[in-house]
Every structure is written in C-alpha cells, then in structure tokens.
C-alpha cells in the first residue's frame, strides 16, 4: 500500500523529553524514526508508558519535539509556528480515545463538524457547508438527521463515528487514531474497526493507528511498530511481525494476549515497565527479558535490519522466538465440536 516517491510522513530521530523535578528528564519518546507512505496504515503498539500517545501528539505538532525532525508531504514542519502549522493541520487529523470526553456536549453535531470547515475552508457557502456535513455523516455511517442532535443523544459507537467524521471533514491525508476503539463495547468495537477498514480503502487515508489491542492492530495495519520505554524496538510488515517476531518484547506481548481459543503456555513478564525517568542501562527491556545476558546491560542495541523491511533492536539475533500464529489453528474447544 505504500506510495511511490517521497513518503507522506518521515520522522527522524524524534525525541520528546520532559524536564521534571530534581533536574531529571523524562524521556517519553527517544530516537524514533519511521516513514509512512500515502494510504499506509502503521500500527503503534506497546504498554502504557511506552510513549505511543506522546509520539502521536508530537508527530501532529500538538506538543513540540525536543529533538529530531518531522517531514510531512515533503515539508519539514518540526519548527513551524502555530501560524505556519495552520494550513498543514487540515491534512493531519486526530481521532481520540474517549468519545464521551472529546465532543463538546453543548454543541450539536452540525456545529461540531462545522468548526474544522470554518477554520480551514472559510470561503465555503452555507449550503456547501451543509452538503459537506451531510456527506461526511454518510461516510461514517450516520443519518443526515444526526446533524441536529447533541452528543448525549448518541451511544458510544455513534459518538466515535462523530469524532471520526470531524477528523475527516477536511479530507486529511493522515489520520492519527489514538486507541479509537478501546472505550467501546465489543459488539460496537467491531463496527468501528470495520468503518476504519472501509475508510482506508475508500479514501486512501494514511493512518497512524495507536492501540494496545494487538489483534485489532493486526487486522488493520500494513506495518507495525512495537514501542518500549519511548523507543521502537521492532518494526516490520504486519504479517511478518506476527509470523516471526524478532524482539523478545514483541514475543512477550503476543504471548500475553488472552485467546478465545483457550489457555496456552505463555511467557509471563516479571514486574512493570520501568520508569522512563531512570531507564535501565543498555537494552531498556533487559530487566524483564527472559533471554537477557550480562552483556545486554552494556550498550543500547541499535535498530538493525534483520530481513528486508524488518528491523529489531536486540543484540541476540540467534534467538528463535515463538509466533502467536498457530501453524494450524488448534483449539481446546475444537475437540468438543
């Protein structure tokens, strides 16, 4: 799906550091590089505290980068002022996690959707604006009558459709979706995942899909980046990553996912993700890694291309890691069917 020529988004050595008390620094994002082609979906996964949300916000310039560069559609936007960012913003939009908190309860859906148009396309006539609102509502599967209603009149899934409509109304090239389905009920979550799948196909939208649900990420992403303590520790084409993870953290993440097919042997990680204020020396994952050796404490392993397009930051490339995909799906329930 990746486009030809220059990528839509090119992030190089991006860092976001927050100074905290005692002269210390919280390195929320550190040394992150990746590209995203037009129409491509890149999934970002990792535990809470891995920096995935901060990465999304920094890429959108909602918070200033501490180091590194962000190039969007060939333009370096890293140090753009608010004013210079404004025309860029219509091409990069954000969908939030919580559809209850991200819509103004005192505005009708029409008012909510009109704001991006007023900002980015002020010349639009009233009738044109109404047409655009009606069109985007239909794109996200809502009826035209939804325009006159208020957020509280909708269910969670419908509200998330409104949030997606607001992001889409100015036809962006890039959508950053930060946990867009995790607040929804299971049966409704599937509807919104299907909507995102449709949109990417119909609109050729590039999506930075930030989520902790690996199964959803697997379904929707072309490539997946795995983050740990502010860094990308593995990035690869989705099926390759699932079929052959090359970083022990990726293996452990997959292994922890409870499977509806029944219990399986799993790699239980010890303890929590360390504090990003005082990350371990050397490989940041070594304190929880079942394969860590003394040498892992020495130096930060670089992200190395281990197969075409498959990068991993682990100094033990000889490891054979298990894949979450069973060779032929076996189920402890199959016997009984």
């Amino acid at each position: 799906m990746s486009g030809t020529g220059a990528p839509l988004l090119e992030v190089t050595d991006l860092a976001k550091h927050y100074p905290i008390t005692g002269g210390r620094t919280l390195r929320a994002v550190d040394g992150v590089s990746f590209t995203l082609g037009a129409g491509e979906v890149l999934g970002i996964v990792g535990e809470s505290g891995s920096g995935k949300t901060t990465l999304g916000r920094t890429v959108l310039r909602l918070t200033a980068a501490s180091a590194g560069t962000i190039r969007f559609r060939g333009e370096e936007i890293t140090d753009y002022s608010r004013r210079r960012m404004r025309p860029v913003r219509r091409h990069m939009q954000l969908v939030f996690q919580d559809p209850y908190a991200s819509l103004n309860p005192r505005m009708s859906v029409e008012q909510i959707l009109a704001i991006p148009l007023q900002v980015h396309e002020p010349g639009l006539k009233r009738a044109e604006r109404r047409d655009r609102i009606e069109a985007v509502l239909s794109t996200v599967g809502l009826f035209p009558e939804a325009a006159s209603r208020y957020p509280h009149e909708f269910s969670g899934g419908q509200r998330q459709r409104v949030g997606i409509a607001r992001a889409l109304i100015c036809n962006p090239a890039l959508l950053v979706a930060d946990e867009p389905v995790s607040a929804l009920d299971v049966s409704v979550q599937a509807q919104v995942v299907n909507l995102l799948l449709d949109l990417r196909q119909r609109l050729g939208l590039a999506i930075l899909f930030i989520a902790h649900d690996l199964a959803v990420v697997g379904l929707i992403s072309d490539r997946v980046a795995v983050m740990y303590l502010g860094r990308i520790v593995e990035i690869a084409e989705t099926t390759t990553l699932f079929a052959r993870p090359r970083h022990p953290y990726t293996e452990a993440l997959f292994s922890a996912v409870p499977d509806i097919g029944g219990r399986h042997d799993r790699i239980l990680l010890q303890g929590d993700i360390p504090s990003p204020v005082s990350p371990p020396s050397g490989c940041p994952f070594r304190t929880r890694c079942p394969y860590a050796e003394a040498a892992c404490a020495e130096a930060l392993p670089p992200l190395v291309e281990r197969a075409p397009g498959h990068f991993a930051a682990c100094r033990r490339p000889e490891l054979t890691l298990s894949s979450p995909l069973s060779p032929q799906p076996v189920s402890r329930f199959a016997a009984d069917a």
Partner: protein
Amino acid sequence: MSDVLTVTDLAVRFTGEGGIVDAVEGVSFALKERETLAIVGESSSGKSVTALALMRLLGGPPNCVVRGQVTLRRQDGERLELLSLPEARMASIRGRDIGMIFQEPMTSLNPVQRVGAQIAEGLHAHERLSARAASDRAVSLLGHVGIPEPALRARAYPHQLSGGMRQRAMIAMALACRPRVLIADEPTTALDVTIQAQILELIRALQKETGMSVIFITHNLGVVAEVADRVLVMYAGQVVEDAPVATLLGRPLMPYSAGLIASVPRLDDVRRRGGRLAAIPGNVPDPRARPAGCTFHPRCAHARPDPCEAARPALEAAAPDHAVRCARWREIAA
C-alpha cells in the same frame, strides 16, 4: 461438588428522575466450590449490578429495590440468606466470607491511607488481630501476591504504586481473611496485557491454593476462555445463556453469544488482514426503553416477528448444564 453460593430470581430495580430501570431481572445461578463462574456482558447488561446486589452494596428503597434470594453456605455448613440479613451481620460477611476486587484499584483504595494499613483494617475487624499482628500479616500478604519489597510497599500510598501493583494490593486485601468466594469485577480491564496475564495467573494460583470459588465479571471473552469453568452471558439485565466454558465458546446457542464471540478480534485475524469483523449491528438498548419481546431481536439476524417480537422468551434447558433464552434456538441450531 456442593454449592457455596446460590442466587435465585435476583432482580434489581432503580427508580429515579429518568424513570424506572430494571437493571437485573430474574438472575439465577449456583456457584460450586472451587468453581470459576464468568459473568459476561456489555455495558448495561447488569453484570456489575448483580455482583453489587449480592454483596448488598446498592442503596436501599425507594430508589433501589432488590428482590430474590441469595444463599451463602459457610464453611461450617450454616446457611445465610444474605438479602434479609441485618446490616451489621452482613458487614461481617463482606471481606470475610466474600471478598471483592474492582476494576480500577485507584478509585477503590483509600488515597490517603497507607496500603498496608488498608489491608490490616480488615484483619483487625474480622479476625480480631492486634494492630501489630495485623500489620505483619498485611506485609506477608503483599509478598504473597508478588509485590517486591512488601514491607516497603506496605508503607506506600496507593498513588505511589503502579496499576498492576495496586491491583495486587487489592487482591491481597480481598483475600486477607481467606474468603470462600471472591467476586472480581473487571479486575484486569484497566491493565496492560502483560500485567493482565500476571494478575490472571495470580488469581488462578491463589484459587488453587485456597480452594475459593470465583465470580469473574468481564466483557473480555479471551479472559473468559482463560479463567472460567462456566459462563453466564448477560444481555439487557437478563441471563441469556448459561453453559460450561467449552460449550459456550465452541457451540453457543443464543445468537447474541454467537455474535459476541464472532466479533472478538483474534491474533489469527492477521491472516485475513483487511478483512472485516463480524460485528453485531445496532447498539445495546437503552435500559429505560428496552424492546418488547426478546430484548435482542432488533439486532438479531435470526429474529422473526413471531415469536421474537411477541413475547420475552424464557430461559430453557437445552441440555442438563446448558440453558438458553431464545425462542428459536432449536431451529437455529438445526
């Protein structure tokens, strides 16, 4: 195996300015010794209200009316009717015979009291331990649930612990008096998968060790597959299916259960990347205005005007250990 807890025709009705909400209607089940019963449902299915009702943690009339029967069989064989017990007696049951853990430990722990003291409080109240003995037990319990440096953590306040550690502390507190029954209401929903795996493993190990029974409330069918022996599926305040876990996940009879199982994304779905999930159309009905007839019929592909819209189907036994609330289950299964 004998039943530890029997729930018969439990119903909860809330009355407020918004009207009447029948949050739970006619829920019955028996929890066996050492069994893990999962209660599965989406928001407003009534799963959490069921748990709160049997712990008598809901308000009283006129705003909240709880009907039905909840019978607890204690270690010594004594049978207690929990819904008619005087409040003082009920307070001695909570935390001693039935322990409970909640979804977000940050909101269920006291933010201004040290973790160790919160655990010691229950031991002091129920087991009449001295303050010193109770606080020593609290430290050893924290160690038992896998908290490193328990003596140090016992002196910490909840905000100084990570989410996973707070949930471990909650579990230590719930299990302090070795309850016969543990009610776990979405205990891993707020946690990362890696931490969720640790907590599920911990609950399993403690259950094996103490022989307690567990009611595990969740919306996550993957978690159900991991922990449950038996599953109750709830929808719009009622039990719509009740079966052993393998039967429920392998051969569900109620279209809602089948739809819920099909809509769960799985890691194996990466093989059909870009393919759609089998979503259930529509939304969970508003509890103030539930559809007539079968509450699931507006979202059900198998629904027919007759009988589905005509009358609320009864919970029927499809097999000795399998109950289903669907008027057409025989035709659909055929």
